[in-house]
């Protein structure tokens, strides 16, 4: 089990009803974390257009997560 801080933005924050939470998860990759939070908060947005960052660095869905990491979940962006 890893202790991870997960931060939610925009639509994900609204779905989760909170900005961030600390979770204990059996997660190897960012994708595992995303999957766990989707199940937890009932969000159904596919990961294809979403992005993820780990400890303030942009990451990929198959990037490994380590105990103590902060995982940032970004729904589809729309700047400009």
């Amino acid at each position: 089990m890893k202790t991870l801080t997960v931060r939610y933005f925009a639509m994900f924050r609204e779905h989760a009803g909170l900005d961030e939470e600390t979770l204990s998860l059996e997660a190897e990759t960012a994708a595992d974390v995303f999957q766990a939070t989707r199940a937890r908060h009932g969000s159904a947005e596919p990961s294809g257009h979403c992005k993820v960052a780990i400890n303030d660095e942009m990451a990929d869905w198959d990037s490994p997560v380590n105990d103590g990491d902060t995982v940032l979940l970004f729904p589809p962006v729309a700047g400009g």
Partner: protein
Amino acid sequence: MTVTLCCCFPRLLAADMIEMTTTEIRPDELRAKLFDAGAGAYCGFEGWIRNVNEGHEVLRLEYEAYEPLALTEGEKILAEARERFPHLQAYCVHRTGMLEIGECAVWVGVSAPHRDEAFQACRYIIDQLKVRLPIWKKEHYVDGHSGWVNCERCASSAASLRA
């Protein structure tokens, strides 16, 4: 002791290239950052809040950003543009918070020796900013509904609310 004001702007440092703001973007003031005696062309782009999107009447837009990564990703984009066009000066500002129709959400300004580089670099920067920066916008519609732009689920749920 006197302070001398000088009209020659030094080459911008990387750290000066992108800003996030919650207040009005002033392109007239920002553009002065790009003055350069070797620049023959300036291209500026502004994204304005418009009153309609995909057929829905829009009242206002709400922008949210994750600023630390918006800034580092923005710096990367500007560095890429400078790599492609070595003599470029480029600067951009993105606004967050609640914006009304007609307000400026994003400004990109570029100066370069020639117009082809200025246009291409400006276009490259805004295209990349739109798809890479962790920024989200929620449309508030005249009919009282709202929806996050580009989210499939929220788009379909907004549509079902409307139907």
